[in-house]
């Protein structure tokens, strides 16, 4: 398929803005760029067709089953889009006078209140623009807290080896030394390993619960108690909140601050990689450390992004929470967990779960034995699934399971879809025994064959250039 630049024809254009109705002013020569930017010259029909063609080469959760573990690809309700497109939201300047922006502040307050109730926190900010950005904010709360106590010794953040890569990266961005602790054989936190690293240099612990293998750590109260005893704080990575929202609250598990991914748990669309929103909540003793905008609220606080955050994303999440309400929130969680267990049961007997027990909202398949037998890897299975129109599950994460495939169906999948998905997995299993080579070369019927990623890294070509 051609790039938009390859469709450009010199002289083509649209008439999108009117003629200038005031005398033309020119930029002084010293500020003028030498050559115009080489942007495409197209008629509107060219633009429309180009992006339609691109759109046909995109698969969204509203297109089909998308069981990406750890991503919570649930259906994105259309009404949320319409609410976020209201001119009374899109046309509002963040620095308009307060009387003119009452509605925006009501959205943020109401969403904040609901999320505090759901998570068991006392205060909430929507300034962070993504989950990792929320992690950064949350760990900065911990950093400010210890600084305010005059405690310079707390230089370490504990992270289990099952954690998402953003956790240690975040801790490093906040100037902490990362202490990785190994997980127990059951995938949960190894209490002895945790005790061994706790001390007066512990600033805090970052934890996901249910964890990244889809298991609820039953020792959670002991874990947070131990960290608090050592003088550290506990940070909750809310990526897996979809399993337990309305059932249990991170605030009751002993966490002091949390982030939630509005673009996962609260149904706002992923957009191909953002915009998301990483709402950060905390207990009242940390509320004074939450970020604010210098322009909107004055100086004196940390700030992680301009203005108030990804406001329209919060509108969508608020619409979602209003729709589900007090009964719908736990209903979503329960059915997410039911769907995951049902799917796992249907697949068992072919591929094996890494942990043969009731899971939460996601489960991990361990294909290491399967690979030994057939030579077919998790990657090969994932690529073969593409030929069946199914988006592959998450591959090779978490690191503590080898040849991992992590599936998270979410609550918005029907029994029929799950049965079909299980059938496809059974086909994969059979195909691996029959024709492993076919799977090594998959996909065969997709937009492209397997791309040469090594070449891409060795000889980076990161922009188009006119020949």
């Amino acid at each position, binding site marked *: 398929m051609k790039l*938009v*630049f390859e469709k450009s024809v010199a002289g083509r*254009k*649209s008439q999108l*803005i009117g003629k*200038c109705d005031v*005398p033309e*002013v020119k930029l002084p020569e010293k500020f003028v*760029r030498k050559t115009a930017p080489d*942007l495409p010259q*197209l008629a509107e029909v060219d633009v429309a067709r180009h992006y339609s*063609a691109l*759109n046909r080469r*995109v698969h969204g959760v*509203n297109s089909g089953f998308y069981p*990406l573990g750890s991503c919570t690809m*649930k259906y994105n309700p259309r009404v949320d*889009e319409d*609410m976020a497109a209201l001119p*009374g939201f899109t046309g509002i*300047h963040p*620095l308009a*006078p307060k009387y003119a922006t009452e509605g925006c502040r009501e959205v943020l307050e109401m969403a904040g209140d*609901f999320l505090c109730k759901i998570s068991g926190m006392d205060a909430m900010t929507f300034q962070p623009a*993504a989950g990792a950005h929320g992690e950064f904010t949350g760990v900065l709360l911990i950093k400010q807290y210890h600084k305010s106590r005059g405690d310079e010794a707390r230089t370490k953040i504990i992270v289990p080896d099952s954690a998402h890569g*953003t956790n*240690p990266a975040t801790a490093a961005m*906040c*100037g902490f030394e990362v202490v990785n602790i190994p997980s127990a054989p059951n995938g949960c936190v190894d209490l002895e390993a945790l005790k061994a690293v706790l001390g007066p240099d512990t600033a805090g612990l970052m934890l996901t619960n249910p964890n990244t293998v889809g298991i609820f750590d039953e020792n*959670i*109260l002991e874990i947070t108690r131990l960290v608090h005893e050592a003088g550290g704080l506990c940070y909750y990575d809310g990526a897996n909140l979809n399993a337990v929202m*309305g059932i249990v609250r991170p605030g009751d598990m002993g966490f002091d601050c949390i982030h939630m991914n509005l673009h996962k748990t609260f149904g706002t669309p*992923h*957009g191909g*990689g953002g915009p998301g929103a990483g709402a950060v909540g905390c207990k009242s003793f940390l509320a004074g450390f939450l*970020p604010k905008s210098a322009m909107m609220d004055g100086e004196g606080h940390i700030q992680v*992004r*301009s*203005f108030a955050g990804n*406001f329209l994303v919060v*509108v969508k999440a608020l619409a979602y929470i*209003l729709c*589900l309400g*007090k009964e719908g*929130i*736990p*209903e*979503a969680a329960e*059915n997410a967990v039911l769907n995951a267990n049902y799917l796992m049961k249907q697949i068992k007997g072919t591929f094996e779960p890494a942990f043969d027990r*009731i899971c939460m909202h996601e489960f991990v398949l361990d294909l290491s034995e399967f690979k030994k037998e057939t030579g077919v890897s998790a990657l090969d299975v994932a*690529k073969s699934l593409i030929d069946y129109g199914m988006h592959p599950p998450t591959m090779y994460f978490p690191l503590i399971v080898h040849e991992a495939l992590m599936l998270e169906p979410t*609550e918005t999948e029907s029994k029929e879809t799950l049965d079909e998905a299980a059938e496809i997995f059974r086909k994969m299993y059979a195909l691996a025994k029959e024709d492993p080579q076919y799977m090594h070369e998959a996909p065969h019927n997709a937009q*492209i*064959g397997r791309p040469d*990623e090594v070449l*891409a*890294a060795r000889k*980076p*070509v990161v922009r*188009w250039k006119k020949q």
Partner: protein
Amino acid sequence: MGSYVPSTQEQRKEMLAAIGLTSFKELYKDVPADMLLDKPLDIPEGMSESELAKVLSKMADKNRIFKTILRGAGAYDHYIPSIVKSVPAKEEFLTAYTPYQAEMSQGVLQSIFEYQTMICELTGMDVSNASVYDGATAAAEAMAMCRNRKRTVTLVSATTHPDVINTMKTYAFGTGDEVRIVPARDGKTDAAALKEMLTEDVAAFYVQQPNFYGQLEDAEELGALVHEGGAMYIMGCNPIALAIMKTPFECGADIAVGEGQPLGLPISYGGPYLGYMATTEKNMRKLPGRIVGETVDSKGERAYVLSLQAREQHIRREKASSNICSNEALCALTAGVYMSAMGPDGMAEAAKQCLSKAHYLAGALCAAPGVELVFKGDFFHEFVTTLPKQDEVLCALEKEGILGGLPIREGVLWCATEKADKETLDKVVEIVKEVLA
């Protein structure tokens, strides 16, 4: 109760039975019993789609929509062509995940590759990433690119947007590094002060162009000073201005960042916005965030993939250059559509009209008694004036559906984009003159 769960009560019973259970409760047997919520959440009952639409519409109605917005300060009201709204609303673009599976995501990957190319064209740089959250975080991430063992201090001009300064200070607080502010003189960076402050511990200097006051900085001269001092030069440029304005590359910048909101994103009370980051080939591997690269597939056909992932958190974890994971992909797509629809001529026209209308407004306002330019240098589309009876004037404008300039310490910061028409600008001046008479 509203619900998006398709399975019926019967189906739920069937599925529970299939896994050997009879109730949902049993799924949560690992959760300590006294932790389970024993009463419903203290939030309202759920509602139908039409009811929630009413609730949110009422909230939106509590906001005042101004027909004309003459306020910028980091959020700019430009004309957004219809196609720029319709493309990102397409359901596949909207609801796709990050393109980790290249064979199923060429549409997303190619659109990002095209966006990257367009940012390179606007800035004159060799490589751009797929975006970061906004202009403020882009400036902060650029800071991190320049630091090394010996040089850890970042100098930031006092003429930078306060939110950008505060964000950079916060990121520096994270890593334990220092941000020092270079003072302003007459609304521009004090070059003599900058020269003195370029000590051996300075990694980089950041300047906004045009700056917070709308003034055009002497970017090339500042850049020369910075390089003489052995530091790196970061410029944060307005992307509409770049259609006609000297590029950061031409000014000697090592890293070009900025707020991409003017490229087709509505002002939406501050977000979602778009941070762009571009640099020279030399610094490519220091760029944080996703980068899409071109390669070939198993059949030798051109294909796009996430590239240079060895910089990123999912590979390097605590050694990653940044923790960034999700970025602003749909906003980058929007910007790409905007730049494709407007084209080089359309963007140059938008820039010229911003320039012309702002100067027209400035000239006309300064004819009113007591109103004069606070900073007298060259400006793009924003400028600061004195304004007697400030509150009364702004109130009178608001009554007519016009959001006037932003009150700041130094005066009132006005902005005019291509959207402002002569008739309205004349009306503004008339109202101002009336109040000040």
